[in-house]
């Protein structure tokens, strides 16, 4: 099947979906690695218990996998995945509500709006190690950012936080696109070098 020339991260998503549907299950793993944190945060706003959040997240990705052949690519993949996550969580919550053995503390309020987030709500039921691990990662990323040379820091900020394209960043920083690409890469790599050991520690082994 012919592929559209991707010009945005969303198009890369579509390529990964197409590969998965064509039979390459590994391509789906890349989508999972990309979106699992956002999905878990979303579900963490509806459900307190962290194990349950993980279960519902797992279920979300399984359902999305099954329905992948229905994804047309006319909308963004994350939007499509988001809806599946919300529906999956709702279904779980409905079942939990009818289960007399489940205590109220499992359930958060019925808020699904991603924009009205409550800071650190998710971490109230995490063990202290996990909370620390997440905080450490965030701290290291921010520290690494601060240590970056100004041009690298600006390039990656415009890309990751402002969401500008390479062309737009090139215009903003008055430099060629190739330089933008190189700066973003070097910034990423510098931050990654400091974050990697922490991620490895979480996994318990090197990949």
């Amino acid at each position, binding site marked *: 099947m012919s592929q559209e020339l991707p010009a945005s991260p969303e198009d890369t998503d579509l*390529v990964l979906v197409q*590969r998965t549907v064509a039979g390459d299950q590994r391509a789906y793993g890349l989508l999972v690695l990309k979106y699992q944190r956002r999905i878990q945060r979303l579900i963490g706003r509806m459900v307190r218990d962290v194990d349950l959040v993980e279960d519902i997240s797992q279920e979300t990705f399984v359902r999305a996998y099954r329905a992948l052949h229905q994804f047309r690519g006319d909308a963004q993949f994350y939007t499509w995945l988001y809806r599946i996550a919300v529906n999956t969580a709702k279904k779980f919550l409905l079942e939990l509500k009818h289960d007399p053995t489940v205590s109220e503390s499992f359930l958060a309020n019925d808020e699904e709006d991603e924009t009205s987030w409550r800071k650190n709500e998710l971490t109230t039921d995490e063990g202290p190690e996990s909370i620390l691990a997440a905080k450490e990662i965030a701290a290291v990323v921010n520290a690494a950012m601060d240590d970056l040379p100004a041009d690298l820091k600006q390039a990656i900020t415009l890309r990751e936080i402002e969401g500008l394209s390479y062309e737009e960043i090139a215009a903003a920083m008055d430099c060629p696109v190739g330089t933008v690409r190189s700066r973003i890469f070097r910034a990423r790599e510098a931050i990654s070098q400091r974050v990697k050991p922490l991620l490895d520690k979480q996994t318990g082994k090197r990949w």
Partner: protein
Amino acid sequence: MNESNASSKEQISALVDGCLQGEACAHALNVVLADEQAMQTWHTYLVVGDVLRSSELAPSRSDLAFLEKLECRLALEPQRPQMLAADHVAASPANVAAVIADTSHPGANASVFRWKMLAASACVALAGVVGMGQWTQTGQRTDAQMAAVTQVVPAAPPLVTADSSVGTMVRDPRLDELMAAHRQLGGHSALQVPAGFLRNATYEGAAR
């Protein structure tokens, strides 16, 4: 960080930003899919981006463990025989292979989750009632599962295409043989007559 390593990582960086096109994109994806280190780089770059946008997105548990657990479950998801569009009815095995096969790339013939063999024990621990179902591919083969049957087995018959109102289904003749055997001997059902027996009788394949 040596030269080729750096340039490969820079490709991955561009991939994350969706700035690779066509062949370059396909190639970069192939590299990430085939190489553990490359996939780790993809993952780390994405974590960095997420955390820059919101510290809430810093992972509190291992993302890899989550993925491994998911893969155990996905290994049990049924693979459907590939459906071709109705107007491809006259497809020869060669055409079928062309339609289904992915573009050939370095990782294609490698064991799919070779590096996840390490996680085999983790899979057992994570699995509950379901048990471990590791998805592996043994031997040299492309992603064209059905086509591989005809490529490897000498003088294979053409792939059996079933009548279908929806499209032409490409079937594995070996599995059809076993299904027929299962239906023949396995009707131990309370619902066997008339429904079960008739169902089996109506289904019975052409492979006899």
